[in-house]
C-alpha cells in the first residue's frame, strides 16, 4: 500500500477510502465517517424530526458502518449505500420507539411567519411522519435529498416505477398537487 499523507488521504474518493478501510486502515475509515456525518445526520433528522433522536440514529449508523463497510461491494455509489444504512437504522429506531409524531418538538418546526402557517407545517410534517416506511423513504430521498427516482430505486432495491408509485402515494396522502414536470423526473 503506498504511503499517503493525511492530506492525500483526504483527497481520496469514497471508494478508495472504502477499499483502504476494508484493508484495515482506520484513518481512511475515520475520514469516511467524518466526511459523511453531516449527510447522515441530515437524513436522520428528516426522518425523525428531532435532534437528539437524529444524533442517536446517526451514531448507531456510524457504529454499524464499522462492521458493515467490509460488505460494501461497490455495486452502487457509496453514498447510496450509506443512505440505506441510515434509513434502515432510522426504521429500526422508529420501530423501537414511540410514534415519532409525538416527538415533534418546538425546534423542529419553525416556520418564520405566522402561527397559522406554523400549524399547517406541523400538520404536514405529522402526516409525513405517519407515512408508511417505504413511501416515507422514497419521499425523503426524492424531495428531501434531491435524488432521482433512478438513484432511489437503487437505494431501495426496487424498480424505478415502484419509487414513482411510492412518491405518488405519498403525495396523495399528503394532499400535494401533482406537478406535471415532476412526474417525468428520473
Amino acid at each position, binding site marked *: *500500500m*503506498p504511503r499517503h*499523507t493525511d492530506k*492525500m488521504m*483526504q*483527497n481520496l*474518493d*469514497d*471508494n*478508495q477510502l472504502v*477499499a*483502504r478501510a*476494508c484493508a*484495515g486502515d*482506520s484513518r481512511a*475509515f*475515520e475520514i469516511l*465517517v*467524518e*466526511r459523511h*456525518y*453531516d*449527510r447522515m*445526520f*441530515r437524513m436522520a433528522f*428528516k426522518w425523525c424530526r428531532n*435532534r437528539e433522536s437524529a*444524533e442517536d440514529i446517526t*451514531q448507531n449508523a*456510524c*457504529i454499524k458502518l*464499522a*462492521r*458493515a*463497510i*467490509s*460488505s460494501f*461491494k*461497490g*455495486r*452502487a*455509489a457509496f453514498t*447510496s449505500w450509506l443512505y*440505506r444504512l441510515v434509513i434502515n437504522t432510522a426504521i429500526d429506531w422508529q420501530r423501537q420507539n414511540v410514534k415519532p409524531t409525538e416527538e415533534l418538538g418546538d425546534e*423542529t*418546526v*419553525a416556520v418564520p411567519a405566522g402561527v397559522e402557517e406554523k400549524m399547517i*407545517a406541523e400538520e*404536514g410534517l405529522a402526516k*409525513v411522519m405517519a407515512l408508511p416506511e417505504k413511501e416515507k423513504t422514497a419521499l*425523503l430521498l426524492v424531495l*428531501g435529498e434531491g435524488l432521482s427516482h433512478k438513484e432511489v430505486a*437503487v437505494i431501495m*432495491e426496487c424498480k424505478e416505477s415502484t419509487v414513482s408509485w411510492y412518491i405518488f402515494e405519498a403525495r396523495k396522502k*399528503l394532499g*400535494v*398537487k*401533482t*406537478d406535471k414536470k*415532476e412526474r417525468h423526473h428520473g
Partner: protein
Amino acid sequence: MDERQLKDLLNNDVPATDGNARKRAVNLALAEFADAQKDSSKNFQGKGFWTRLTDRSNQTPRRDKMNSKLVYGGMATAMALILAVGATLPHMNNTATLRTGAIQNGASSAPGSMGLSKDKVEADASSTLAMAEMAKPMAAPAEAKKGDSFNSLLKNLKESQPAPAAPVMESMVMTGAANIAPAMPMGRMMVMDAMPQPGYHDVGRDKFEHVEDSPVKQVKAEPVSTFSIDVDTSSYSFIRKQLNSGVLPQKDAVRVEEMVNYFDYNYALPEDKAEPFKPSVTVTPSPWNEGHKLVHIGIKGYDIAATAKPRSNLVFLIDTSGSMNEQDKLPLLKNSFKMLLDSLKADDTVSIVTYAGNAGIALEPTKVSDKAKIIAALDSLGAGGGTAGAEGIRTAYQLAESNLDKNGVNRVILATDGDFNIGITDHNELKSFIERERASGVFLSVLGFGQGNYNDQMMQDLAQNGNGVAAYIDNLNEARKVLVQEASSTLFTIAKDVKIQVEFNPAMVSEYRLVGYETRALAKEDFNNDKVDAGDIGAGHAVTAIYDITPVGTAPSVDPSRYGASTSAAPARPEATALEYGFLKLRYKLPNGDTSKLITTPISVAGEKPLASTKCPAGAECLVADSFGASDDVRFSVAVAGFGQLLKGGKYTGKLSYDDVIVMAQGAKGDDPYGYRAEFINLVRLAKTMPALPNTEQ
C-alpha cells in the same frame, strides 16, 4: 400544499450538526472499527451487513460472501471505470450534472491510467486549493495494482458489460459548516450500470435461514438453558461440498451442532436397557478462551441388532422436476436408494412417489424381496417439469398410511434439491400438514441433493416437524453413510421429543453460551410441556452439545441457595454449590409414548478433565491408566465445534486458529474406520488456504 411547500417542509429547519455529537459518533465508530478488524483477522469476510440490510428482500438472489473475491474484483473494475472527469465550476452552488464519455475512456485507456493513477492522486493533493477555482480533472483511480491483480483487473474490464449510458456525475457542494474536506467536491457517481455482473457462484442462490449465534448469557439473569436435540447432519455435508469446490460456505449454511453431530461418537451406553440412552458429561478447559471451560454433553442411543429391527414401510418421495436433471441429483439419488434397498429386509415394503407437474405413483407398495421391480421403477425415473411438492407429499402419506404397520417403521423419505414451486407453496401450510401427519405415525425424513437451488430452510422445517432427519447427500460415500451405515439411526427412532435443560450454578458459573443449536432453542417452560415437539434420536445416534462457560473466579463455599434462584434464606443444597457447575435434565418420550421421562445428572467438578490425550503423560500421577484427558470423542467434537465457529466468523473463539483445530483433531482421530475424521482435517486445511477477502493485497 404544493410541491414547493412540501419540499420546503421536508428540508427547512434541519439543524446544523453538533460538533460533540459528531465527535462521539466518530469515536464510537472507530472503536467498533478496531473491534471489527480484530474479529476479521480471524474472520474471512466480516459480518455480512449487506445481507442484514436487505433482509426484507432476502428472497432475491444474493451474491453472497463467498463471492466477495469476485465482487471485489468487480469493485476494482468499477474504480477504473470511474476515471471520470468531474468538473467543479467556480461559484457553483447547485448541482452540476455532467455527462462524460468516461466509461469508454476509462476502459480503453485503462492500462495507461492505471499506471499513472498514483501520480495523479498526488498531483491532485498538491493542488487541492486550486480546485475550487478552476475546472480540474479529478482522478478517481483504483489503487495501483501490480502483477496478477492488475491482470485480473484487465480481465474484468474485458468481461464487463459495456454500460448502457455514461454515468451521471454530480458534484455536490456540502453545506455543512464543519465539512472536513471542504475542497473536495463530493463525487456521487451512480456506477451501477458500469458494474460488471460478477460471475457469481450458484451457491448464492441456495437458501439458508439467517440465525444469530446463541449469545453469551449471564447465569444470574438466566440460569436455565433449554433446547431440543438435533441429529441432522446436512450442514456438514453441504459445507464439505462447498469447501471441496473451492468456496467458503455462507455463514448461514453453518450450523455448528450439525457439524459436530455428523460424526459418530462412542459415548457410554446406558447400563439399563430400559433407558434408550444416557448422557455423558465432561468438563474441559476451553481451547479458545483462556479461563473458560467447556461443558460437553454426549448422548449415545443404543443400537438395534439387525435381527431385532422392526419391519419398515418406506415411501420414497422423489423430486423429478427438471432441476433434478444433474449428475449430483437424480442419478446420485437413484444410486443412493439402491444402496438403501440392500440394507432392508425382505419383508420391508417400498413404494415410490414422484412429483413433477402431477404427483404420480411410480411404484405401488412392493416387498423388498421383489428387488428387481423396485430397481426397474427407480431406473425409469426421469427428470422434467415443475415441482409440486405438496401434492407429492399428500400422495406419499396416503400410500404410507394405506400400508401402515403399527409395530413397524412408517416413513416417507423425501429426496429433493429444493423448492416446491407448484401447488401448496405456502411454507406454513405444508409444515402444518406434516405436523398433522406425524400424529398418524408416519414420519418424514428429508434428503437434500445438489446445489444452486437448495432450500435448506424448507428441508429443516419439514424434517423437524415430521420427526425426521435432514441429511444432505453430496456423493455416493455420503449416501452410504446416511442410508446404509446409519440406516438404523435414520430409520428407527428410539426416543422422540428429546429436550435438554441445563440449570447453571451461579456460585460456580457466571456466564454460559450454548455452542450452536440456535434454531433449536426452547423456552424453559417448554421443557416440561410434553406437547412441545423436539428432536428425535435414532438407534445408535450420537448427539453432542457443548456449553462454553465462564467459571466464577473463586468458588464460594457457602451460598444462600443452591442456585440462587430461591429467595428463601435456607440454602437448598449447600453441599452442591461448590461441587457442581450445573444440573443437567433430559426429557424424552419412547417412540410410541406420549408422556415424557426424565433423566437427570449433575455437572460436577469431578467430571473435569484436561483437554489432552487420555494417555497418562510421563511424570503425572494417574489413578487410573488411560483416563488422564478427555476422550478422543470429546476432543474431536470440540475441534469440530471450533471449526464450525471459525467458519461462522469466530465471534467467540478468541485466538483459535485453523491450525489449532487441525492439531486438536489430529490428536483425537482415534480409530476412524471410515476416514471421516481424516476427511474433516483435510477440510480444515482447505478452509485455511481458501482466500479470505482479498484486501491484503492493498
